[in-house]
């Protein structure tokens, strides 16, 4: 079990890399420090994974340190918990052990790629340090044993994305995009924070009552909470019923939606393309956006006892998947196409989790990491070579950047779900899961939901093949575009540091799916389970036929439109004019948000200081003026006029003499007679 403590190193070594990046003299060496730290982390995470594979059915391993806590004399008073423990640590189970290497490897490859991509950048050192920090945050998130630790890492990921998207801070768009990413995801984070706080309020008294005195029991801990959720479902926790669980699950979902850029909190993701392209790869493949899906997977026991929320998860996922695919199809900016494809794929994962296909969802997270990183890094190579992001201005990549183009082709195949590529296995298990549409607790969706989900998944299967190949055909196979000041002849293959990661990722995109095939000894589904039994998705022939068939149709259609135009089909894009424009604008969600923020926040905000000046201050001033006026009036008594003084004096004389007389004769109220 001590072996698992390597996970501490897995998590902390990149943080050390980030800190030590400021020691070396040259920025190049700083980058090497960061890469080395990530590499160490990756190797160690593989060791942990290997050990875990050897002990498949062992209990999850936890190691904790306490940050701050207090246990006052009276632990519980009137149902309100007075003790408090904040812990951080590591949790090693199938889920975290399998995701840790993915994060580390993607980060490692992205950093290697950045060596070339960012060459000569002014913020070279900062860039690598922040990537290392970002990696650390994501690793810590994956290895979190409790909600608090998860939230720490969650915010660390947000911070990392803020700094990386805003890496080119001198570009106003980049600065705005960084702000937007942080802000929008933080709105989701508040949901998560609220879930934590809410969960504490609901479960901490029960946890405390179960814990023997003198022992620390962390009411944020996932294992503790899993037990509690189950208890609550059975009605054993006082004050917690189905509604509470549903609210909790919805709040967690809100956090997940924000980070995973699902509708309606997706708007930050396309803007985030203002960051350097390798950063996009990092954010989209294995870190930031994956965190939301990971969160749902991690808290799946909660969702299982709140089945209605699972329906919401599935519907949001399906909606986002279709939305992402449609918008991706309309865009011409290569990075935005891939960005919207991320929304789409994450939507698929949500759908899978929502219909109870837990393994399929996590599996797609796993395979998606490879091909999405691949697409972005390859796109980065092309962008750097062509100096543009518009696919219409590229063309002819195939003949000039052979390796990159091959890699991109493989990535597109994988993304489209072409048979035997990585994406195929995971996507088809999702399709199968949606067709079966069940989750282990025996819940089920209504017929309408079921039908909607099936339609959505089918549509995404088709469109999901269409848009990557549209991009590929236009940008790579099309004729070299004629642009002023640009000679396509000078386009060369990228340097080795940028090609190598792409090749590795391409290889993984091809083969990584095979571990998901059921029947083999240690399959993904056998390994990754958060429940008490393996969640192995049976191989479903209907799903394969449907998913793979639609994918192939999509590829074929793309071919017939953009390579060998068939008039009937080739006219389609032109007919879609208005829809395409709307889609390119993200269906005006951004504008709607801008309008809402302006009306609901900015305008009232502008009003507040005016109210302060006009009313709050005016009242204060009014009181002050009143006092002042009285004082001025009183001052006239002191106007230097003798008679006024004399009058005052005599008033005093009258009052005092009268008072004394009354007092002396016992007629003054409250004063006893001294007669």
């Amino acid at each position, binding site marked *: 079990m001590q072996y698992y403590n390597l996970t501490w190193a897995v998590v902390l070594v990149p943080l050390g890399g980030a800190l030590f990046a400021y020691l070396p003299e040259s920025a190049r060496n700083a980058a090497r420090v960061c890469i080395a730290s990530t590499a160490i982390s990756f190797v160690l995470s593989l060791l942990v994974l290997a050990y875990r594979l050897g002990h498949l059915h062992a209990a999850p391993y936890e190691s904790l340190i306490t940050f701050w806590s207090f246990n006052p004399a009276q632990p519980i008073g009137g149902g309100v918990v007075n003790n408090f423990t904040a812990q951080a640590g590591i949790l090693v189970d199938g889920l975290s052990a399998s995701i840790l290497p993915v994060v580390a490897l993607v980060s490692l490859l992205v950093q290697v790629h950045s060596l070339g991509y960012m060459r000569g950048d002014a913020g070279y050192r900062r860039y690598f340090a922040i990537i290392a920090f970002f990696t650390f945050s994501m690793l810590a998130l994956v290895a979190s044993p409790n909600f608090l630790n998860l939230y720490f890492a969650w915010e660390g990921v947000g911070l990392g994305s803020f700094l990386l998207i805003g890496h080119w801070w001198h570009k106003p768009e980049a600065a705005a995009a960084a702000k937007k990413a942080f802000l929008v995801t933080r709105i989701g984070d508040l949901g998560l924070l609220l879930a934590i706080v809410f969960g504490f309020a609901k479960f901490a008294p029960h946890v405390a009552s179960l814990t023997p005195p003198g022992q620390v029991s962390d009411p944020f801990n996932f294992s503790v909470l899993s037990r509690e959720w189950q208890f609550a479902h059975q009605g054993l926790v006082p004050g917690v019923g189905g509604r509470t669980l549903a609210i909790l699950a919805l709040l967690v979902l809100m956090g997940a939606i924000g980070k995973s850029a699902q509708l309606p909190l997706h708007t930050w993701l396309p803007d985030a393309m203002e960051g350097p392209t390798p950063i996009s790869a990092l954010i989209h493949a294995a870190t930031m956006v994956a965190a939301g899906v990971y969160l749902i997977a991690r808290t799946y026991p909660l969702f299982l006892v709140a089945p209605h929320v699972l329906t919401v998860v599935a519907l949001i996922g399906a909606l986002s998947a279709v939305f992402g695919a449609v918008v991706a199809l309309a865009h011409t900016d290569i990075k935005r196409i891939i960005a919207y494809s991320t929304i789409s794929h994450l939507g698929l994962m949500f759908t899978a989790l929502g219909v109870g296909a837990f393994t399929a969802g996590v599996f797609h997270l796993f395979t998606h990491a490879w091909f999405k990183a691949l697409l972005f890094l390859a796109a980065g190579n092309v962008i750097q070579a062509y100096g543009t992001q518009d696919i219409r201005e590229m063309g002819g990549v195939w003949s000039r950047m052979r390796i990159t183009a091959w890699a991109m082709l493989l990535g597109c195949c994988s993304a489209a779900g072409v048979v035997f590529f990585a994406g195929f296995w995971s996507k088809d298990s999702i399709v199968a899961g949606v067709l079966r549409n069940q989750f282990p607790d025996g819940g089920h969706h209504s017929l309408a939901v079921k039908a909607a989900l099936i339609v959505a998944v089918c549509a995404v299967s088709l469109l999901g093949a269409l848009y990557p190949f549209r991009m590929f055909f236009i940008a790579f196979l099309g004729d070299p575009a004629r642009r002023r000041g640009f000679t396509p002849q000078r386009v060369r293959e990228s340097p080795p540091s940028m090609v190598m990661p792409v090749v590795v990722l391409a290889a993984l995109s091809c083969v990584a799916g095979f571990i998901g095939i059921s029947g083999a000894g240690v399959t993904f589904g056998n390994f990754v389970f958060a429940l008490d039994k393996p969640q192995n998705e049976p191989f479903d022939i209907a799903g394969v036929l449907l998913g793979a068939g639609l994918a192939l149709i999509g590829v074929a259609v793309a071919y017939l439109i953009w390579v060998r135009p068939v008039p009937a089909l080739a006219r389609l894009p032109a007919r879609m004019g208005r829809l395409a424009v709307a889609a390119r604008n993200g269906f005006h969600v951004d504008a709607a948000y801008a309008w809402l923020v302006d009306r609901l926040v900015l305008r009232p905000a502008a009003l507040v200081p005016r109210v302060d000046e006009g009313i709050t201050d005016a009242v204060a001033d009014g009181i002050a003026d009143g006092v002042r006026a009285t004082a001025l009036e009183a001052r006239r008594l002191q106007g230097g006029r003798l*008679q006024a003084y004399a*009058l005052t004096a*005599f*008033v005093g*004389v*009258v009052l005092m*003499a*009268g008072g004394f*007389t009354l007092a*002396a004769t016992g007629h003054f109220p409250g004063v006893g007679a001294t007669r």
Partner: protein
Amino acid sequence: MTVNPVAFYVIAVLVVATAIAVVAVPNIIHAAVALIACFFMVAALYLAIGADFLAATQLLIYAGAIPVLIIFAVMLTRGSMRREGNSWVRWWPLALLVTMGLGAVLLGVFAVSHDRWHRGTYPQRLLDDGTTRTIGDALLNRYALPFEVASALLLVALVGAVLLARRDESEAVLERSEEERRQREERVRHRREERDRARRARLRDGVSTPDEST
């Protein structure tokens, strides 16, 4: 031994009436005349209760000397005889109210005191032979020191009055100091205007006042 009530009441009414006339008549000269009448009546009151020496002093000083001074003052100040120069202040009802309050308090005190101020009986000897000798005894034995102080005070006051009223020197000094004060004020005003002008100019040039403390 006793005081003739009729005489007392008549005199008392006259005293109060003339006193009211002093503050009530608008013409200052008329008021001065009423004042003299009032003093006479007070003297009569003293006589009526058997204070002969006081009555004589009252006549000499109050009815004789002081009104003369006052009439001189009236004559030396132009305008004080004009009608508009003798009006009442705006808030005279307030003053009346306060005065009535004062009177009420005094009457109240008298009412609750129940005449308990008697120590002894006024000896017939004083009524027969007059009070001059006894007062003289008191002044020169028991109250010798205050008597001397009072005389010194009177002397000093009169000398002071003469000094104050002398026109030439004091006036010149006053005028000089007045002039100096005016010049000083002028200088201060000038300096302030200068500063304001400079500040306005600075603001116009877009330079805010520097924050010197940081």
